[in-house]
């Protein structure tokens, strides 16, 4: 994944007073190197593989938002809502307004998800544990119900959208998949790098503190609810981005984007990844896509079994997720 090295600074040995700017520069550089390598590899890779990685990177963005929330101690079971909002926004902009830019659509999807999720943030910031999870699930299922009933949005069948453009240029038939692969990798890299910077920031550290001891955060002058609300909104942005990117590659949107099983897959990836590493999210998302693709091909209708066994293995042997493999000893 392009963002694979985004977590590198935290893996490096701790130095005396870190030159933070240098560390960030190194992170950005590493991210760009991986992006270039993946871009070159994708040029020679078969189409099915670039499509798989595109899906993994786009879905990984949604799970990255969940990881941001997990760092604060909550897990949303309804991230399908923002995923669907991002997807429907991109599709509607494309079909109704003729806005077709492959970089603009994800941005619009992310912003739309923020606009719709933000009013719920103050409410959700008051809840923890199963209550937070169920409230987010409820929101996503209400969204699902609305999408199923609204004929103007295609009802249960959803609707199709055409091929996006890039900076006003039509994408060539032979290269459309590869270009969308590049766009998705670029967005995932940028967001992955920003996520790393955020996780290492003062706000990021306070989020970790919230997970362990909210009372002390308040007594130290930090705002727990503000931290949780901000993380929810940021997760919505990531979810909206991911939804729009997936829709662009699939060329189709439907209410299932908001269904609880879709949300469950994002949570699955987040748990698989753990909350320490940004790169692990994209690795876990790729693992999910690979297992899904190969299991579907060779063991039809039983791919969930393979996935479940894999998750059991990770929970048993890597309770902090895949990321703990290369983030050992670093609780952040």
């Amino acid at each position, binding site marked *: 994944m392009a963002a694979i090295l985004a977590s590198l600074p935290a893996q490096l040995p701790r130095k005396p007073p870190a030159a933070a700017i240098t560390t960030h520069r190194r992170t950005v550089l590493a991210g760009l190197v991986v992006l270039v390598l993946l871009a070159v590899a994708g040029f020679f890779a078969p189409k099915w593989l670039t499509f798989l990685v595109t899906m993994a990177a786009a879905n990984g963005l949604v799970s990255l938002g969940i990881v941001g929330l997990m760092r604060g101690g909550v897990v949303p079971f309804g991230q399908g809502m923002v995923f669907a909002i991002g997807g429907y926004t991109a599709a509607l902009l494309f079909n109704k307004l003729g806005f077709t830019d492959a970089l603009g659509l994800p941005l619009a999807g992310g912003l739309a998800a923020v606009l719709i999720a933000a009013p719920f943030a103050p409410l959700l910031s008051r809840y923890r544990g199963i209550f937070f999870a169920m409230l987010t699930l409820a929101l996503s299922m209400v969204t699902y119900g609305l999408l199923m009933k609204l004929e103007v949005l295609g009802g249960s069948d959803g609707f199709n959208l055409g091929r996006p453009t890039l900076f006003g240029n039509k994408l060539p038939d032979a290269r459309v998949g590869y270009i969308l692969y590049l766009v998705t990798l670029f967005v995932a890299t940028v967001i992955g790098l920003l996520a790393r910077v955020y996780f290492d*920031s003062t706000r990021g*550290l306070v989020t970790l503190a919230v997970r362990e001891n909210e009372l*002390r*955060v308040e007594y*130290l002058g930090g705002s727990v609810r503000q931290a949780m609300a901000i993380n929810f909104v940021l997760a919505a942005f990531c979810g909206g981005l991911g939804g729009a990117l997936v829709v662009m590659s699939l060329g189709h949107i439907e209410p299932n984007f908001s269904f609880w099983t879709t949300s469950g897959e994002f949570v699955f990836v987040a748990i698989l990844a753990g909350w320490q590493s940004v790169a692990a999210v994209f690795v876990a998302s790729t693992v999910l896509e690979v297992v899904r693709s190969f299991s579907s091909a060779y063991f039809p209708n039983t791919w969930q079994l393979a996935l479940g066994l894999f998750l059991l293995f990770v929970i048993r042997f890597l309770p902090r997720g895949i990321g703990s493999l290369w983030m050992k000893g670093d609780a952040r």
Partner: protein
Amino acid sequence: MTSMTPMLEAHGVGKRFGAVVAAADISISIASGERVSLIGSNGAGKTTFVNMITGYLKPDEGRIVLDGRDITPLHPRAITRLGVARSFQIPQLYGDLTVLDNMLVANACHDQALSFWQPARRRSALDRADALLERFRLAEHRARRVAELPGGVRKLLDIAMALTAAPKLLLLDEPTSGVSAEEKFPMMETIMSALGHEAMTVVFVEHDMDIVERYASRVVAFYSGRIIADGAPNEALASDDVRRYVTGELVPE
């Protein structure tokens, strides 16, 4: 020398939990720079009073004034931002993080403009954290996970974190509880020498009268939610009520 400006005032403060009177008509004025020890048996109302000062509990009646400002209706975060910090009887730390990261959390929370991109491990924050760790003799534990630390070290870290905000009023809830008898004085010595750099008002809840006698400039004794003695340590500790209800001596009625 302490100035006569009241740093903390309580006016007729009361708190009930159902039929239990946890605090009744508590009135007190603590001058800036004083080192006050709150003493009393378990359930006497000391921690309830501390919790009311910090906003964790709201008084049913009365007012609490900090440096001339009524803080009674404020929530803990707002009161913290006005310059009140506290430590806890059971240290409230982040066990999964290192000692240094705990200090950085304290620093980040204190930072009014929490930033999305400003690194928590920036030089100024690290310097500040290291200076406090040095003062509390915690530097050697800097990179250790808090969950692995002994109780006494956690107590010191709890207080060091509270000091990150350079508070005007520091409340220490039983700073030496859970620490062995021989470690109590060295630990209190460490705390007091670390605080010595700060011109702050310190209120500490304590059960060990030897500690109280040595480190408090004033003693306030509680019993059944009421103040039964208030004065210099030698006077307060010698009063019949304190000997009867706090230190448990047999004093004729």
